[in-house]
């Protein structure tokens, strides 16, 4: 059952690559929908009361090193899988009908989705790493060959090299776990049961942390993100921003903390990641304030929001970590929606400049309405989803250190400023005098029905998760079997 969750998009992706242009789109949509249906079946039949991995599949793989092909889902991964499949479907559907080399593009998108599904499914450390690295290959090609802007090849290479420094250090960590844990295995539960000595854990902790921090990204490892997001084509950007960043946070909860529950050194390391997270929250928000380009604004706001996730994880208590998981889903829903809206505005007006776009709402009421909901969700309005996650992570952080929680609130204060300014400016400010873009040159067409249908599930989920977060949180008792929560 679980194998099909990555094999379907992987094989489907390879097949789609070789289909003729017209058929490729249909094929890709069919594969993405099939994947979504499969994950929904898994999520629907998931037993909330049961701890540990469900639907587990295990087969020996490289016996000499005790590597096994071990898949499983638990409360941590099940909704992330759904998110992956959902955003994957939206991304495939959002690919315009006229698209250069569409077959290869859609095929690589599906391969990327397969890689991320594999990351969320793996219960074996080496298998996890294989998927983790393998998803970089389609990501590189998607970013480079279909990238926008002046130099997509630069952005793609920067992205790969940044990620790779972290990943390869993690490879040392992966092997280190095998060598130094008395389990002599790559199986995650076995490794978690027999962690290495605290001093060695300390070294391994930072090897893993580096990889995940680059992927999320945590300040100061974020410099690949603006380049990559700016040059990513919109459909790929949905996957990149919506799901791939989450694999890093997921890795922290799945691998980093359970495998190294008690790293010790002569200096107190516990403050490192929460402080970096808080700096990231403020830094991202401040840079978002300064952006004129709407895409860049959303990209920087993404750094800020990911900071909350890291802060929640390294609050090292149940509230913070549950909040982090909720926030992973929230962010995974909101950011794709924002990028979609930005792309649609750009397609209609030919501009993403916040200073140029004004008064679009009267011509595009539906877009304005949906944009409003997404904006409110992004800035954390109670009743919409982001509020729940941010509140829980800050609650967790408060227990760790009130100062950190207060500092983290800067993100909450700045978010309304940049988000509302963005929304208000583009949608409602009247055109005052001569603008750079004479209104008649602008195609002021409201959202097509197809586009509304694309955004509708995301907006619906913002309400569902905002009003009924229990849907996600009630699975959390099964969160990370064997995770040992530390106190500062």
């Amino acid at each position, binding site marked *: 059952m679980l194998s099909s969750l990555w094999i379907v998009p992987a094989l489907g992706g390879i097949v789609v690559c070789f289909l003729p242009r017209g058929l490729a789109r249909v094929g890709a949509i069919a594969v993405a929908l099939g994947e979504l249906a499969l994950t929904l079946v898994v999520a629907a039949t998931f037993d909330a009361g049961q701890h540990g991995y469900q639907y587990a599949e295990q087969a020996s793989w490289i016996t*000499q090193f005790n590597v096994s092909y071990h898949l499983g889902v638990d409360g941590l991964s099940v909704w992330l899988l759904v998110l992956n499949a959902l955003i994957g479907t939206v991304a495939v559907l959002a690919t315009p009908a006229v698209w250069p080399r569409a077959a290869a593009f859609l095929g690589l998108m599906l391969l990327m989705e397969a890689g991320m599904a594999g990351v969320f499914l793996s219960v074996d450390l080496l298998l996890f790493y*294989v998927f983790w690295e*393998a998803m970089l290959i389609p990501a590189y090609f998607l970013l480079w060959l279909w990238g926008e802007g002046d130099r997509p*090849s630069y952005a793609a290479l920067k992205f*790969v090299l940044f990620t790779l420094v972290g990943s390869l250090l993690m*490879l040392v960590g992966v*092997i280190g776990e095998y*060598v130094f844990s008395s389990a002599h295995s790559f199986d995650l539960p076995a490794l978690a049961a027999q962690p290495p000595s605290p001093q060695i854990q300390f070294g391994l902790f930072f090897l893993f942390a580096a990889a995940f921090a680059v992927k999320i990204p945590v300040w100061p490892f974020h410099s690949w993100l603006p380049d990559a997001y700016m040059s990513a084509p919109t459909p790929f950007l949905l996957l990149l921003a919506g799901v791939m960043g989450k694999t890093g946070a997921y890795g922290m909860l799945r691998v980093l903390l359970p495998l190294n529950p008690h790293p010790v050194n002569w200096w107190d390391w516990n403050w490192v990641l929460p402080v970096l997270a808080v700096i990231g929250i403020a830094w991202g928000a401040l840079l978002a304030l300064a952006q004129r380009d709407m895409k860049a604004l959303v990209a920087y706001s993404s750094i800020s929001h990911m900071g909350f996730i890291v802060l929640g994880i390294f609050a090292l208590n149940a509230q913070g970590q549950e909040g982090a998981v909720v926030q992973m889903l929230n962010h995974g829903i909101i950011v794709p929606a924002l990028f979609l809206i930005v792309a649609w505005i750009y397609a209609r007006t030919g501009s993403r400049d916040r200073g140029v776009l004004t008064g679009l709402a009267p011509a595009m009421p539906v877009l304005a309405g949906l944009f409003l909901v997404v904006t409110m969700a992004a800035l954390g309005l109670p009743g919409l989803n982001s509020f729940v996650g941010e509140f829980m992570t800050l609650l967790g952080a408060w227990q760790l250190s009130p100062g950190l929680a207060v500092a983290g609130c800067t993100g909450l204060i700045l978010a309304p400023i940049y988000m509302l300014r963005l929304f208000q400016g583009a949608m409602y400010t009247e055109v005052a005098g001569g603008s750079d873009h004479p209104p008649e040159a602008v195609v002021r067409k409201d959202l097509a029905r197809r586009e509304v249908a694309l955004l509708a599930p995301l907006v619906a989920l913002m309400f569902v998760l905002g009003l009924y977060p229990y849907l996600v949180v009630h699975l959390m008792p099964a969160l990370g079997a064997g995770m040992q929560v530390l106190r500062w």
Partner: protein
Amino acid sequence: MILTAGLQISYSAAQAWSDLSQIGPIVAVTVALLVAVVVDLLLPRAQRGPAVAMISIAGLVLALGIAAYRLVNGYGGSAYFRFVSGDAFALFFELLFATIGVLAVIVSSSYVRRRGLDESELHVLTLAAIVGMMSLAAAGSLVTVFLGLELLSIALYVSCGYNRKEQASQESAAKYLIIGGFASAFVLYGMALIYGATGTTVISDIATRVTSDMGGNPLLLLGVLLMGVGFAFKVSAAPFHMWTPDVYQGAPLPVTAFMSVATKAAAFAMILRVFNYGLGHIGPEWQVLLAFTAAASMVVGNLMAIVQSSIKRMLAYSGVAHAGYILVGVLAGGRAGVAAVLFYLFGYVFMNFGAFAVVSTLSTADGDGDQYEDLNGLGYRNPTLGVLMSVFMLSLAGFPPMVGFFGKVFLFAAGISTGWTWLVVLAVLTSVVSVYYYFRVLFHVWSPLPEAPARYALRPVRGPVTVVLVTGIFAIALGPLSGYLLQVGLNGAAPLLGGR
């Protein structure tokens, strides 16, 4: 049998047959070599090339079959008074060299035709080099080691200068001859000193006589140092790598491809046999030297590869870097370390030879299309070659699920578990650098088609394309199925652990 007193010769026919079957793969290739030489003289000029190619392939496939058969059935042991051995280690390498040989003959057969060169001599030289390599891997004595080393080197000197009309090829041959001669002299001097220190040239006897308290013996140490330098030349490990890029660039492309994988494997077989097995007890003495060369190779190879404009030279420097990675496994030693080295060498064949085979399809009568620009738009001109070139580059860069990734995992696992963590971290960081130049190839392969017609027209000839396909399939499939190859490697490593 009538025997003179004192001279104890009890060499029965049964013994002769048993000895001969121990070196069965070597015999098969040698016979093919001799037949090929004769056939080359008898046939009319036009038919020589294809006939010799067929004979070479037949001999190599036979060798492959014999080696596989003996390996599967677990035959093996020493022969000719322990001067050679047909153990699993030797069989592993015989398998490896026969595979490379088949690939090389196919690629060079079509290459020489396009470049307008004579065909048959190149195949004969390739066979001779393979006989040398196989003897090297099967060596039970330092004498056999040197014999194999010279046989393979001399054959390759000639091969490098095979393109007589091209100055670069001549330069390559001369450079290789001089530097290779130096290296051989170093090795021979080292062997002489080790013989002086131990009183034997048989490696298994050296393994028992050299005990860990002999670490202070100056004769032995000097011998180890000289031999180590010579070996480092042969595997093109820094700082003894200077010849590699020039020789690789000048030599005809299939020869470069052959050298890049086969010579490296042969030299590592020699290092494993002599150092890990023969001199295993004084490991700490030579490990310092090797650790330094490994670190230097990784840094120099990866940094120098960045600035190259020729793919041949880039792959030469990348080969230096890979020698550095492989040395981690040599340093780790033990069953896991040796098996990781064997695994990596086999995997490296498919990714590196495959990459060269792709480049070889760009060759015309005018020259080799080995500049990055010559690859422009390859992915659109011929998607199969483009995709597989990407696979080779990603595998060399160590991306899963290709074989290169698993090779690195096994090497690094052996390295970390024996305490060479600093070297592994260095390997990891330098391999990030390597991604830059491997991706540069991808950049050209998938860049838009150039407006001007390509300098070298793409000739998707059947032979090289088949080689590319086969190596590509192996480079991918040996990743997920790495357990099987690793098991063969572990079996191959077993004979080296008897001495300890």
